[in-house]
């Protein structure tokens, strides 16, 4: 059985985690038990609301995306995570005190830039790498 199974395995077995999609009409955000699945959330910091747009030239605000939600893998669900996260979740069910649950965390990050004045009226453009969460997944 092992031999025949090996033949059917795809060549690429160490795929990176599939990021969770942003919620759409077919997404089961709250899962089957009222719990929210791992997904991307937004905490918007408005430079306009802070009254900072006289010295922050761009952007008008910053979308601090973060990942939040449950990383549970019922056996009949579509497993949107690494094999490691699935195994960790199963082991957590068996030994909850010894093994923590898989974490909902960023799987893809990108940079962001801010343009502002300093106290000498020089203009500063600062780039922050790996700052914006583009996608979340279970690790």
């Amino acid at each position: 059985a092992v031999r025949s199974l090996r033949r059917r395995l795809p060549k690429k077995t160490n795929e990176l985690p599939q990021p969770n999609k942003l919620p759409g009409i077919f997404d089961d955000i709250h899962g089957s038990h009222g719990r929210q699945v791992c997904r991307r959330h937004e905490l918007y910091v408005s430079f306009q609301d802070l009254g900072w747009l006289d010295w922050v030239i761009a952007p008008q605000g910053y979308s601090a995306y973060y990942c939040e939600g449950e990383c549970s893998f019922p056996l009949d669900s579509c497993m949107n995570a690494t094999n490691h996260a699935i195994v960790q979740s199963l082991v957590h069910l068996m030994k909850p005190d010894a093994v923590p649950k898989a974490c909902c965390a960023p799987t893809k990050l990108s940079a962001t830039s801010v343009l502002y004045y300093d106290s000498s009226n020089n203009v500063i453009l600062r780039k922050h790498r790996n700052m914006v969460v583009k996608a979340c997944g279970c690790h």
Partner: protein
Amino acid sequence: GSSPSPRPAAGCPQRRLGPRERRDLQREILAVLGLPGRPRLRAPPAAARLPASAPLFMLDLYHAMAGDDDEDGGPRERGLGRADLVMSFVNMVELDRALGHQEPHWKEFRFDLTQIPAGETVTAAEFRIYKLPSTHPLNRTLHVSVFEVVREQANRESDLFFLDLQTLRAEDEGWLVLDVTAASDRWLSNRNEDLGLRLYVETEDGRSVDPGLAGLLGRRAPRSKQPFMVTFFRESPNPTRVPR
């Protein structure tokens, strides 16, 4: 069974933030973005400053960089290369030796570099000056050279260090970009030795030309055409962060 365990999550704490925590978190995010608070501006509001040359140039750069940001960064980055921080410096002092017939003519520009944060490495620096078409000297090739003022002498000419040379036609118009990376690098390591940049214009036969007559605009030019310096920095691999 096929349903998940009802036990609470042991690995990742998840809870809603209170209004105060939310505000603190916003402050933290701003601090991470390098925006810990409002600076003490010495000039009128941004609306009056926006048409100035340096902010306009930096805004173009921001839009180019924002396009790069969407594309994950890394090797596909365009335009800005490896820079993490770009600073434009307003020309604070402009000295002129263009009056009368005393030769050679030159213009000197100084900048306030005290605001550069520690732990940055210069990757490139440009001095940008706008040139209008000049009829004096007519139909001539001009050599514009820029030097770093290394040491000022009481009774004789200052010691200068050559930085860059550009050749152009007298009738040319547009931004002239001169490479001043070497000077910026030195100023960053010895911040007290920032004595400025000196600009000379010569004809092909070596005659000195008044930069103003050659069409090079200085501090009295319209705001959108005033000279400025822009420096590209790369953050050191292990930036020192203030404990928070």
